[in-house]
Every structure is written in structure tokens, then in C-alpha cells.
């Protein structure tokens, strides 16, 4: 694909490096190409996991066994969870959009450690393969759930070790990506770009990276301890040997709750780029958004106990964690307020990226409010481990991070590939996805409150209406996803040539050609204005 508007411009996709053909991809140190490597592999893994999700929904369409037995169901929800969480939502936004756009947004030619970046990708890939393999070989698919709760995970005869190793390797990859980003942001901002002139997506990546670096090692060691438990019978978490299973839950959630913010913060960062562009207005409350990102990253460390309200922790710590959980909602609410205010009075252009960004707010709020329900001790005891929880986290993670991802890919697609997708198809796919999503997950709130437990392959007849609706929703959603991906993939080669700045954005990525050249900038730009100044977007022009 050649797209030379300026004659001399060579797109990074056509750049002739040291290697040719496939190797030029597999050995690349160009942050943009690495971003695409992640994009392609994550898309494939996403469909693997989504199909597992649909299979579960088919099983649940009627009471009793429908297409798989209980043990298979356990394996399927475990691998679905592991792939979705560790292979997709934790790495996806930093690894794809962070890699591709972080250097561009701060006016750099690459990340600080390009080779380390490629290494992270390979770790990621190996970890992901381990996860998928665990489903098919040896002692059978792991059946512990993605949380690996002991003592069961220490005793189950299935491939738990594969899954633990997979999660460990993926964690390591995530640490290295975070480390790379922190150093990049500290050291490689273009001249004139002080901290408070940095766009907000890099800010959100910065907050995320610190969580990745500081929280991931804790889960790493916890997973190693479970491996030691299985292999050597050490007994840290085994009551029969004097250990303490609740200790595992503490260690696990000390990581995994902040990890929830690894998943959502970059998503918030993406929509924060989209609202100003499609309202043609500076973002409302730049500093408030930035501080709330950091606050979320910080407070996120102190709320893990809300996962253990029913696991036998003390009364005092229960209300304390409950209280802190409510606090965490405040910075998120601030952000929602800022996004809505950004749109207020702007000239709104309802293109696909904005559609997804608005649905992001909507779904994220439903997820957030139900999160507060779960954060309140009394309500939690009622709905703990029910379908309500399943609905809540799908709203937050899929409705939040997932929709932010869809928003991001529609926003940056022209820049990444130099082509336009079909707006009409994108809109139709959006409608199908949005409708299917709600049909899939909303009924789960209802049957959850009525008492439908999660992780069960069978249920009482009174829950069937909810399950049938939900399963129909799964098919609609899946169809919508296929339409969306088809639209995007089809137009990579065949779409109309994209201009450098199709949405009239003002951040740096829109001031270089689409697709960017190998080194992003012919000459490093000098930053003289704040990031979101509309109307005089030519001021930061590179050379």
C-alpha cells in the first residue's frame, strides 16, 4: 500500500528496514509495528475467548445439560476468563494504542527501549499461547476460574500450572511495557512539552504504568507460591499444613483490584482524546481529569478487601473497605462530569468514534453504580457470586474498556492504516453491538438479584427467561462484533485514502501524514501551546 501525498513521504508500513517480508515484522523495533503485532494477535485471541463465551451462553439457554457437561463448562469459563483478563483487557490498550500513539503524542520517535518493547511482545505471545494450550493438552482444561482460588487450585488435577505460568509470563510482559512507558514519558517528551502540556491519553498511560510496575510483581509471586504449593506441597495456603487460604485472596486482590484500573484507565484516556475532537472544544477540566487518573491509580490499591466481604475478614475491615470503595467512585464521577461538560455547547459530530465513546459513558455508569451496590457490605452479601457480579464486571470491563477500545480503533484507524472505513457500516455495527451487549448482560442483573449463582452450568427453571434473553443477546453481540471487524479489516487495503487529519484533531498525531513515517517526525516538534487548543491547530506544526 503506498500513500505518498508529499512525494518523499514513506509510510512506516513500507519502510525498508534491515529485514524483509515477514521478518521485517517479527524483528521490528518500530513501536507502531509492534502495536500492530499486538493488535492482530489480541484480535485473534479475543475471538477465541468470545466464542467460548458464546458456547457458555448456549449451554445456559435451557436448564440441565445442553451442549457440555459440568466439568467442560468449568474449563470453558476458566479459560474464557483467563484469556479475556490476562491476554486481552490488561494488555490491550497500553500495548496497542499505547505503543502506537504514546511516542507520537509526546513528539518522540520511538519508546525509550525499542528492543525491550519487542521482547515484551514475545513474552506476551508465549504467555498467551500457554494459556490457550492449557485448554487442550495434558490433564484437562484448568477449572479453577481465572482467580485461581486456593485450596482448590492447589488440588485440582487439571492443567492449573500451565495457566499459572501463562499468567506469570503475561504479568512480566506487562511490567516491562509499563516500565518502558514510564521512562519514555519521563525522558522523551518533545521540547516545550512540560508535564501539564502532555495530552491526557499519555497521562492515563502514565498512571497505568505505575500500577503495572508496582502491583504486578505481587501477583507474580502469589502465582509462584501456588505453583510451589502444587509441586512441592509447601502449604502456604493450605489449612491442613498450617497455611491460610484467605491470605491468598489478600495477595491476589491486592494486585487484581488495581489491575481493574489497569484495564479501565487507558480506556478513559482514549475517550478523553475523542470528546474534544468531536466537540471541537478543549477538554473541560484538564487538571481535574489528570488528577482523578492519579487518584484512581492511588486509591485503587486500598480497596481490594471488597472482594472478601463474605470470606471471613473482620467486621472492622469490612466497613473500612466498603467506605474506601465508595471513595474510589468519586474520581470516576469527576471524569464523567468532565466528559459531558466537554460536549456541552460544542459542535458535536456524531461519528463512530464518538458513538462508541458516548456508549462507553453509558455502560460504564451502569457498571459503576452496580459496583457501588457490590461495594456496600449488606448488598454484597446478597449478590456475592451471583449473575449480578457477572453483569457488573462485563458492564465495567467490556462496556468500559471494550467500548473504549472500539472508540479508539475507529478514531485512530485512519492514522494507523492510512485508509478510511465505511462510516455507514460502522454505525450499523455499533447499533447491533450496543443492543446485543445490553440484551446479553442486563438480564443477568435481574436474575442475579433473584439468586442465580455464577459459574453454574445448570439452574432452576424460574431463571430461564433471563437466560434465553441473554443468550439471544450473545448472538446479536457476536454478529455485531463480526460486522465491526469485517468493516475494519476489509478497508485496510480497500478503503478511501485517509487525509492526515480527518477529524480536525489538534494533538500531535494529526499533524503528521497518515500513516506516519518510520520515525514519526522528520524533525522533532517544539511545543508552544497547551494540548487542546482548537481553532489554531497549526501552531505545533513539525518543521
Amino acid at each position, binding site marked *: 500500500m503506498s500513500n505518498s501525498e508529499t512525494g518523499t513521504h514513506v509510510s512506516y508500513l513500507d519502510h525498508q528496514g534491515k529485514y524483509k517480508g515477514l521478518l521485517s515484522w517479527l524483528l521490528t*523495533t518500530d513501536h507502531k509495528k509492534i502495536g500492530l503485532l499486538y493488535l492482530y494477535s489480541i484480535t485473534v485471541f479475543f475471538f477465541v475467548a468470545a466464542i467460548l463465551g458464546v458456547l457458555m451462553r448456549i449451554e445456559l439457554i435451557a436448564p440441565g445439560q445442553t451442549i457440555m457437561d459440568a466439568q467442560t463448562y468449568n474449563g470453558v469459563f476458566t479459560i474464557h476468563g483467563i484469556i479475556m483478563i490476562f491476554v486481552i483487557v490488561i494488555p490491550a490498550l497500553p500495548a496497542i494504542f499505547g505503543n502506537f500513539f504514546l511516542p507520537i503524542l509526546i513528539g*518522540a*520517535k*520511538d519508546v*525509550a*527501549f*525499542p528492543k*525491550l518493547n519487542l521482547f515484551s511482545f514475545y513474552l506476551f505471545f508465549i504467555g498467551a499461547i500457554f494459556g490457550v494450550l492449557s485448554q487442550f493438552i495434558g490433564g484437562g482444561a484448568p477449572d479453577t476460574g481465572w482467580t485461581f482460588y486456593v485450596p482448590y487450585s492447589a488440588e485440582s488435577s487439571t492443567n492449573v500450572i500451565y495457566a499459572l505460568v501463562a499468567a506469570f509470563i503475561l504479568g512480566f510482559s506487562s*511490567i516491562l511495557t509499563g*516500565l*518502558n512507558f*514510564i*521512562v519514555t514519558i*519521563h*525522558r*522523551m517528551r*518533545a*521540547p516545550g512539552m512540560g508535564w501539564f502540556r502532555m495530552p491526557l491519553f499519555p497521562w492515563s498511560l502514565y498512571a497505568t504504568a505505575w500500577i503495572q*510496575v*508496582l*502491583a*504486578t*510483581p*505481587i501477583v*507474580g*509471586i*502469589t502465582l*509462584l*507460591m501456588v505453583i*510451589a504449593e502444587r509441586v*512441592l*506441597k*509447601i*502449604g*502456604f495456603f493450605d489449612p491442613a*499444613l*498450617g*497455611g*491460610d487460604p484467605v*491470605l491468598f485472596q489478600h*495477595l491476589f486482590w491486592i494486585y487484581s483490584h488495581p489491575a481493574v484500573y489497569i484495564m479501565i484507565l487507558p480506556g478513559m484516556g482514549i475517550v478523553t482524546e475523542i470528546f474534544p475532537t468531536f466537540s471541537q472544544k478543549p477538554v473541560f477540566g484538564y487538571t481535574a481529569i489528570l488528577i482523578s487518573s492519579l487518584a484512581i491509580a492511588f486509591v485503587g490499591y486500598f480497596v481490594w478487601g471488597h472482594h472478601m466481604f463474605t470470606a471471613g475478614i473482620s467486621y472492622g475491615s469490612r466497613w473500612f473497605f466498603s467506605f474506601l470503595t465508595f471513595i474510589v467512585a468519586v474520581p470516576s464521577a469527576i471524569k464523567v462530569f468532565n466528559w459531558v461538560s466537554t460536549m456541552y455547547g460544542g459542535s458535536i459530530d456524531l461519528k463512530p468514534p464518538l458513538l462508541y465513546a458516548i456508549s462507553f459513558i453509558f455502560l460504564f455508569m451502569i457498571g459503576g453504580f452496580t459496583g457501588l451496590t457490590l461495594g456496600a457490605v449488606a448488598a454484597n452479601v446478597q449478590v456475592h457470586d451471583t449473575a449480578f457480579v457477572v453483569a457488573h464486571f462485563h458492564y465495567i470491563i467490556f462496556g468500559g474498556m471494550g467500548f473504549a477500545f472500539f472508540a479508539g480503533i475507529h478514531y485512530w484507524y485512519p492514522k494507523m492504516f492510512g485508509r478510511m472505513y465505511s462510516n455507514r457500516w460502522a454505525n450499523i455495527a455499533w447499533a447491533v453491538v450496543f443492543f446485543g451487549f445490553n440484551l446479553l448482560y442486563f438480564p443477568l442483573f435481574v436474575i442475579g438479584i433473584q439468586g442465580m449463582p455464577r459459574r453454574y452450568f445448570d439452574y432452576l427453571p424460574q431463571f430461564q427467561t433471563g437466560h434465553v434473553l441473554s443468550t439471544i443477546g450473545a448472538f446479536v453481540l457476536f454478529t455485531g462484533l463480526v460486522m465491526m471487524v469485517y468493516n475494519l479489516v476489509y478497508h485496510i487495503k480497500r478503503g478511501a485514502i485517509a487525509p492526515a487529519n480527518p477529524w480536525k484533531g489538534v494533538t500531535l498525531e494529526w499533524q503528521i501524514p497518515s500513516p506516519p513515517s518510520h520515525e514519526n517526525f522528520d524533525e*522533532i516538534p517544539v511545543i508552544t501551546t497547551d494540548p487542546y487548543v482548537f481553532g489554531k491547530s497549526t501552531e505545533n506544526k513539525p518543521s
Partner: protein
Amino acid sequence: MTVHETHSTRIDSDTGKLGMWIFLFTELFLFGGLFLVYAVFRAKYSEDFHTAALELNTFIGTLNTVFLLVSSMTVAMSITAVQKNQKKLAMFLLIVTLILAALFMINKYFEWSHKFEFQLFPGSEVLKNLPRGELLFFGLYYMMTGLHAVHVLIGMILLTINFFKIKSGYVNQDHYLHLENSGLYWHLVDLIWIFLFPLLYLIT
């Protein structure tokens, strides 16, 4: 900002060091998880921890501490030597460091195999019949010193690579980031041991 011009060839040294420091933080947090578990069980079974710790050989432990402390010094000296362009000396000091590290590992080997003779290894019958706290103590002992030993090995590999890089001139007076970072890593290995040693051997 010269960083940009050099990004595809050599990382400038402040950037490289910042990266290394952050990495060392993650390593500390990795061990931190184990320290946390240690603290919990120590509080719960302080009697048993007391008795079990008596089993460990303080002499070997002390000897190993000395090895690591001295090796930390020799690494630092070899960095200085490179800075002063004393290539031979720097290589010699790295060899000394590696020998000390090897002595540490040999000691560890004897220490562990001695315990194995008494059937004191994870999962053994003897261990299973001990009081719960003692069993957990030995579990932690193997896990912590084992993970530490893995780090010693990695450090040794890094230093060996550096030896050859000095030899080939890749690491030199103007460009010694690799050596410096490996040295930092080695100090971390030392530092962690300095925590492990009293926790496991001395507090009885």
C-alpha cells in the same frame, strides 16, 4: 534533547538507569510478597519459627553474607576501573566477583543438601510431622533462598556477559551503562540477602 537522535543506536545513560531502577523496584515488590507472607506466619507461629530457625547454620549464613558483601564491593570497583580506563583491572575484579558468587552458590548447595539428608525438604514425611509453624518456616526458607539463588545465577550470567563486553571493548570508558546496570542488579541481590539473612538465620 539528544535522546531522540540516539534512540535507535544506544540508549543514553540516564534513561537506561531510570529503567533499571524501576525494574529493581519491581524485584523488591516480588520479594515483598514473600516478606509479607513471612510476617503473617511469623506473627501466627512465633514459637515454631523460633525453633525451626535454630536448625539453620548461622556460620554458613554469615560466610555467605560476607561473600556477597565483598562481591558487591568488587563490582563497584570494577565499574570505577572501567571509568578510569583500566580494562585489565576491571576484568580481574569481575572475575573475583564471579568467584565469590560461585562460592556463595557452592555453600548454598551444601547447606541445602545437608538439610535434604535429614529429610527436611518440602513434601517430605519428616517435615509433614513437624509442628505447622516449623513446616511453614522451612517452606518459606526454601522459597525465599531459592528465589534468591535464581537471582544470583541471573546476576552471574549478566556479569559474565559484561566481562566479555569489556574484553571486546563494547563496554568502555565512555559507555558503561551495561556494566553499571548489572552492578545495580548485583547490589539488589546483595541487599535482598541482607534482609533474608537476619529474618531466617538470626532471629531465633
